[in-house]
């Protein structure tokens, strides 16, 4: 079922019920006004009479005050009231006295015939009327068929509700007819109420809109109120619970008021459209709760007053509905009409009590009639409201959908743009990436080259030094060999001369003389001394060569970077050997190496590079001073130390060179930092040294002072 058809069906249904109601109205118009005989009544308040007076004495009292209203109103109080009705036994006996108010709590009727009580009827909410005495829902009292000079009916009344006395005397058939009419009318009314209740409950269950539930409860309360007011309380079986029965009117008053407030607040969206009224209604809400509490605590008259006062709240609903309607909330129109009708009905109901308009069946039924109209109109209003909400919801959904579509389009467009951008950026990034990768590769290879060139520089320095170290011995060994050969030839000449001497040469003397001459010529003593010196030189040269070669062998363990066990002193010695020729011209290098140092795991080749670098730097620093060669010092020492719970091998390389300031000292391990002129030194030496020492978990401390020198302290953990 489409939304629209659904809406129309609701309105159609409501129209149908309205039609039924109109028919009922037409029917009830046949009602004729009944003769209430309030003006025949006389009243007396309990306060004005002696406490212990006999009823028959009271009947004869002179204090009775005649009533002037058609429907006497004895007001709202806890006081007991008395009414006297003088009857005409000739025409009125056998008839019924009917008081059309089912809400009187205590209503006792004494029939007094010539000063004698001949019948007592106990009616009202307090008492359970015998079934066979019930005629209709209102209390009624049969006038006995007796012969009396003077017949009086005395009524003792007490109620927590206003004591309105619409009293008439009529025949049982008429009472029955009235009761029947009321039954029919109220049945129709309750039919309407019930249908609306079930209908709205059904709507609530099927649609789930809370306002239908609120409205259902509201209908229940309004209908219940009418039921109780018109004496249909037994329908609830309330008679079996006297406590509740007595307060039923109050409870229904409270709950119908509360539900009206809640329903109106939500229906008119008062918190949104008319906040002040919303707050005001909240005050009424609280007052109703107070009334409820008063009811529970037996302060029934007070409670009724509060409820009465609170009923005024509905008058605020009219301006509230108008303001809401003005603000463009269409369902408020139905609400306005519904409550206008209801308020009109209430006005009629109230005015008839004050006597301003006649008390007849019409005015009497104004309230249920108005209530029925109200219920139906409100149901229409609710449907309209639901439709409005649905329309708004649909509109909002449509707008949302449209917005969503627009958004989606924007998002789609954006996506395309974004994708494009992402693609572009990705491409750019990839390009940059590849460029960077290339740069990185170049840098890595450059770094490798630099490290390699630093290594090569070390090796170059090394080979130059070693070449020189080897050159000298080679030079004098080879030269001495040649000289030796010549000296040997000289000696050989002597030997040959001696050898050629015949054992028995007669000229031996002169031959010996010749040899002596030869000895003198060859300066053989000098030659012998020279041979000695040359041999010493050759021996020394051989020793030195082998020492250098051994040092080289240790030093040049630059094969791979394997960690092996090595002795630090051996490494240091070999470094000093290969550096000796370079160092000799720069400064005095002394080594103070501790004995019995344990071997430790290290990379000997790389450590040699470390020591060579630092010692060379130290010697150069010393050379840069104004000191004479003998005064320039580089001291290399090794030591075993115990510190922070560990054993270390400590290497100290100390010079009395130019030293460094803090700024230079802070940078010495930075790559490419150098104090040497451009073109000399790569600036990588110490940075590589640092890397190597880090690989050895070594601690490095540098102490330096300008003009005094520098000391490197390196500690290897063992």
């Amino acid at each position: 079922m489409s939304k629209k058809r659904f809406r129309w069906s609701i309105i159609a249904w409501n129209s149908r019920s309205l039609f039924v109601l109109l028919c009922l109205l037409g029917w009830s118009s046949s009602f004729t006004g009944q003769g209430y005989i309030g003006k025949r009544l006389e009243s007396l308040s309990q306060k004005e009479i002696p406490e212990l007076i006999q009823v028959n004495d009271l009947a004869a009292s002179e204090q009775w005050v005649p009533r002037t209203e058609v429907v006497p109103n004895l007001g709202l109080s806890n006081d007991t009231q008395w009414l006297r009705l003088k009857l005409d036994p000739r025409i009125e006996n056998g008839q019924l006295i009917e008081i059309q108010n089912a809400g009187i709590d205590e209503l006792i009727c004494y029939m007094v015939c010539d000063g004698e009580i001949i019948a007592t009827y106990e009616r009202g909410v307090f008492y359970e009327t015998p079934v066979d005495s019930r005629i209709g829902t209102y209390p009624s009292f049969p006038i006995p068929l007796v012969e009396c000079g003077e017949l009086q009916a005395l009524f003792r009344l007490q109620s927590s509700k206003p004591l309105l006395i619409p009293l008439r005397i009529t025949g049982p058939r008429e009472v029955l007819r009235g009761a029947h009419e009321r039954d029919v009318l109220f049945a129709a009314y309750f039919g309407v109420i019930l249908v609306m209740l079930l209908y709205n409950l059904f709507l609530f269950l099927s649609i789930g809109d809370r306002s239908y539930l609120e409205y259902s409860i509201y209908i229940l309360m309004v209908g219940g109120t009418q039921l109780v007011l018109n004496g249909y309380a037994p329908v609830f079986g309330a008679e079996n619970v006297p406590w509740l029965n007595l307060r039923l009117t109050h409870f229904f008053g409270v709950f119908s008021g509360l539900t009206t407030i809640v329903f109106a607040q939500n229906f008119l969206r008062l918190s949104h459209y008319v906040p002040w009224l919303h707050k005001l209604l909240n005050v009424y809400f609280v007052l109703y709760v107070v009334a409820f509490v008063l009811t529970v605590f037996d302060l029934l008259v007070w409670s009724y007053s509060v409820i009465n006062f609170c009923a005024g709240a509905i008058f605020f609903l009219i301006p509230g509905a108008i303001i809401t309607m003005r603000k463009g909330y269409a369902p408020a129109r139905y609400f306005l009409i519904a409550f206008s009708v209801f308020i009109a009905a209430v006005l009629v109901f109230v005015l008839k009590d004050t006597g301003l308009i006649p008390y007849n069946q019409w005015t009497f039924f104004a309230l249920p009639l108005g209530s029925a109209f109200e219920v139906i109109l409100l149901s229409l209003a609710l449907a309209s409201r639901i439709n409005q909400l649905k329309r708004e919801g649909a509109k909002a959904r449509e707008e949302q959908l449209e917005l969503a579509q627009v958004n989606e389009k924007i998002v789609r467009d954006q996506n395309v743009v974004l994708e494009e951008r992402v693609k572009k950026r990705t491409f750019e990034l990839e390009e940059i990436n590849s460029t960077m990768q290339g740069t990185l590769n170049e840098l890595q290879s450059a770094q490798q080259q630099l490290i390699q060139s630093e290594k090569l520089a070390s090796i170059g320095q090394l080979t130059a030094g070693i070449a020189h170290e080897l050159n000298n011995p080679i030079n004098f060994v080879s030269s001495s060999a040649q000289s030796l050969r010549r000296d040997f030839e000289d000696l050989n000449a002597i030997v040959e001369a001696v050898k050629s001497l015949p054992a028995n040469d007669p000229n031996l003397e002169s031959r010996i003389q010749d040899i002596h001459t030869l000895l003198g010529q060859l300066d053989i003593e000098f030659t012998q001394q020279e041979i000695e010196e040359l041999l010493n030189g050759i021996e020394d040269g051989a020793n030195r060569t082998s020492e250098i070669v051994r040092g080289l062998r240790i030093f040049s363990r630059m094969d791979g970077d394997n960690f092996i066990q090595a002795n630090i002193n051996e490494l240091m010695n070999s470094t000093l050997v290969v550096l000796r020729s370079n160092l000799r011209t720069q400064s005095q290098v002394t080594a103070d190496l501790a004995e019995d140092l344990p071997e430790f795991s290290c990379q000997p080749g790389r450590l040699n590079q470390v020591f060579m670098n630092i010692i060379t730097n130290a010697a150069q620093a010393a050379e840069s001073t104004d000191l004479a060669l003998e005064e320039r010092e580089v001291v290399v020492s090794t030591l075993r130390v115990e510190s922070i719970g560990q054993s270390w091998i400590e290497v100290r390389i100390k010079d009395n060179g130019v030293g460094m300031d803090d700024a230079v000292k802070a940078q010495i391990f930075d790559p490419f930092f150098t104090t040497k002129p451009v073109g000399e030194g790569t600036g990588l030496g110490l940075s590589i040294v640092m890397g190597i020492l880090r690989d050895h978990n070594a601690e490095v401390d540098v102490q330096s002072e300008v003009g005094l020198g520098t000391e490197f302290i390196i500690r290897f953990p063992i």
Partner: protein
Amino acid sequence: MINVLYLDDESHNLTAFRAAFRRDFHVHVTTEPTEAVRILREQPIEVIISDQKMPSLSGVEFFELIMPDNPDPVRMLLTGHADIDAVIDAINKGQIYKYISKPWNEAELKSLVEEAAALYHQRKVMAREGQQLITKMDEARVFARRIQQLTADGFPATPESRAEIAELANQIDRLLQS
């Protein structure tokens, strides 16, 4: 015999050098630069050989040191390894005649020393001849000045003066021809 001075901090080199060349030259050897300076003062040294790499001072520095007082001896540098920058520097400044690398070749070194000595003597002769030339030029200048005086007042009038001018011209001729 050629007088050779050899300076080297390595005494074995000195021994080897003396053993190799004592038969050919007057060999003077020392490890100390100061001793070398003393020898230069006392001996008619013709050729000086110095090692480049020495602890106290380099060979080039040594040559610079002795140059002002001993310009004549021919200088040769002995280098252990190709310290090529120092060598270039030394040659450009005219401080050395040749450089020899270790280990030396005995025959080559011997002929180099002989060449150097020959150069030394050639320089000596040229210097002497130059000196003689200067002396003659001075004498000739004296005669020329006299001729100028005689011809100052125009052509010489007297036969005596004419004869004197002819005599002076003959004198200059003779000087220049020698």
